[in-house]
């Protein structure tokens, strides 16, 4: 105990040095905490993706390539018995109608800004959904309600809509406002946002309303199935295929999506892992060299302590306690730094990886993917892009577990940074270091 006390008191023998070293260690530890926090946040994001996207299955008209492809629409009768399939937790039938722009270009022509804007205004999507289900857009992505309310059971046949943020903005539609579709006036009850301009350029209607207005009574574009856990997806796909037979395709989105997202995840994980070890290494080196300097300065004192009967254990524990104290001070300051600058630092670490991996096809409303025709792969790439974009906006939080891990890492750094130089101190011969007394 006295060794610990002596070591901790020695920290303040040179206040300027201690403050300087503490700041350097704090910077290293702040960086390390950020890396750990990113890692935790990314893992949580993956878990969310796996839960919400990875467990999604789509039933599409046979031979088509997604909601926007050609093919005979599905019949409402396909829904019978789907919710009884083992491990299926949600069945969401959807009618999707894509109103394309009349915009066209001749070979070698470049569109004007005004023409592009006009084309953007003309293009929109209609999603007919059962009241109460998620506001699902292309490829399984989900919109979040920003204003107003979502559908309730009474809305099933009413002329009400939840409009996408881009659609509402371009037409200056507030909640409570109205717009006309096929000569019917529809009231806006909510505004939702999916995060991309492409997905937000449209609106949701109750399924029955959409079928009536679009003259598609009893028809569906797709059915979104949600399975309880990721490991059950393959079995559920097999069961659903057995049930629908050749009338529809049953497609799991998890493989393509997770492969796409997985590349980014691996890059982020690689960056954070390297960053973690480099920053911890830097902190360790700062403590190590500081302790070496301290031991060189105190060679005489070490000789005196040995002459007074100090054992090797006393010396090692004294220096280890001193290094540990510096490391813990650095960790506390590092935690404070993290709370103020951690989010900014995390964004700077993640964004280069995310930007490098964003799909070009989904980068703009009239980008290459849309002009080339929207197949299922493009939609999945677009959705992957949305998910990857979510990685770029992850929030790093300081949890108790992170605090404990930081303190533990600091303790290990301190012990290593203190004990290794202290072992050098043990080799000092008191007669030699006291010779010049």
């Amino acid at each position, binding site marked *: 105990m006295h060794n610990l006390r002596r070591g901790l008191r020695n920290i303040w*023998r040179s206040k300027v040095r201690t403050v300087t070293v503490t700041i350097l260690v704090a910077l290293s530890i702040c960086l390390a905490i950020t890396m750990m926090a990113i890692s935790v946040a990314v893992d949580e994001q993956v878990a969310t993706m796996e839960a919400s996207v990875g467990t999604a299955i789509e039933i599409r008209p046979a031979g088509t390539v997604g909601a926007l492809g050609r093919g005979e629409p599905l019949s409402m009768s396909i829904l019978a018995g789907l919710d009884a399939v083992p491990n299926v937790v949600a069945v969401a039938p959807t009618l999707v109608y894509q109103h394309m722009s009349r915009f066209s270009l001749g070979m070698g022509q470049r569109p004007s800004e005004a023409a592009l804007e006009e084309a953007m205004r003309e293009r929109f999507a209609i999603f007919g959904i059962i009241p109460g289900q998620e506001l699902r857009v292309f490829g399984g992505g989900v919109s979040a309600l920003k204003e107003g309310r979502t559908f309730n059971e009474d809305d099933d046949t009413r002329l009400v809509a939840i409009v996408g943020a881009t659609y509402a903005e371009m037409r200056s539609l507030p909640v409570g406002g109205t717009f006309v579709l096929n000569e019917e006036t529809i009231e806006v009850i909510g505004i939702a946002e999916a995060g991309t301009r492409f997905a937000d350029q449209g609106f949701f209607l109750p399924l029955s309303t959409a079928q009536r207005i679009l003259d598609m009574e009893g028809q569906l574009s797709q059915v979104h199935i949600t399975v309880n856990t990721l490991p059950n997806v393959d079995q559920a796909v097999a069961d659903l295929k057995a049930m629908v037979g050749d009338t529809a395709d049953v497609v799991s989105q998890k493989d393509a999506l997770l492969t796409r997202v997985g590349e980014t995840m691996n890059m982020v994980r690689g960056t954070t892992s390297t960053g973690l070890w480099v920053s911890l290494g830097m902190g360790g080196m700062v403590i190590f060299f500081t302790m070496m300097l301290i031991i060189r300065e105190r060679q005489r*004192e070490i000789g*005196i*302590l040995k002459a*007074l*009967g*100090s054992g090797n254990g006393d010396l090692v524990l004294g220096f280890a306690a001193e290094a540990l104290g510096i490391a813990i001070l650095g960790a506390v300051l590092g935690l404070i730094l993290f709370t103020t600058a951690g989010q900014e630092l995390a964004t700077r670490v993640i964004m280069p990886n995310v930007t490098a991996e964003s799909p070009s096809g989904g980068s703009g409303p009239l980008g290459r993917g849309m002009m080339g025709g929207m197949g299922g792969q493009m939609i999945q790439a677009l959705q992957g892009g949305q998910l990857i974009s979510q990685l770029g906006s992850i929030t790093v939080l300081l949890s108790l577990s992170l605090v404990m891990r930081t303190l533990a890492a600091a303790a290990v750094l301190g012990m290593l940074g203190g004990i290794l130089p202290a072992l050098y101190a043990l080799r000092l011969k008191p007669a030699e270091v*006291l*010779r010049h007394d």
Partner: protein
Amino acid sequence: MTNALELRKVTKIYRLHGQEVAALAAVDWVLLKGVMAAVVGASGSGKTTLLNIIGGLDRPSSGEVILSGQPIHHLAEGEMVLYRRKLLGYVFQSYNLIPNFSALENVELPLEFARYPARERKERARKCLQMAELPENRFRHRPAELSGGEQQRVAIARALANDPGIILADEPTGNLDSKTGRQIINLLKRLSKEDGKTVIVISHDQGVAAAADTTAYLLDGSISQAPPR
């Protein structure tokens, strides 16, 4: 009286630039318990080497060092630590107190190494400082706040902390004025006479030799009881 210290043919040879230099050459010396002895010699005569070997801080190249009847020249480092801790007290020329510790805490240090309980440690440290005649109101002061004489008293108190049989003092008056130096020598002498400590003082100062019960003269690594001519 029994022997506190016995040196038999103690030799210490250093290798310097490929050449062997004998710091001590077959030194024989016997010292009785409770005696204050002065070791006098010029610079480079081997005084500090002799003190380091007696104190277990260095080992002889050959010969025997017997302390209170126990040979110590062959002890392993771990045993040597115990030997230094229990049987010896050191007083250095430049005091060598720990700067961020108070006088009391400096005296407590050897007791901490010897694993004394906290309460006993403090009582013992106080008693030692009183024996070294440091005013009570200086106990909480740090070395930088004490005069040279006061610091040397703290160093002597620290040497007394573990109640050792032998006190080794290397030029204890070297950094002090003559009056304070005399007070320190008188203190060491009293410890020898009243408390039965064997005190070995290394010094250039002939006044120290005059105050000692016995004087050994070192010249080129050899010891004699008569001053060199």
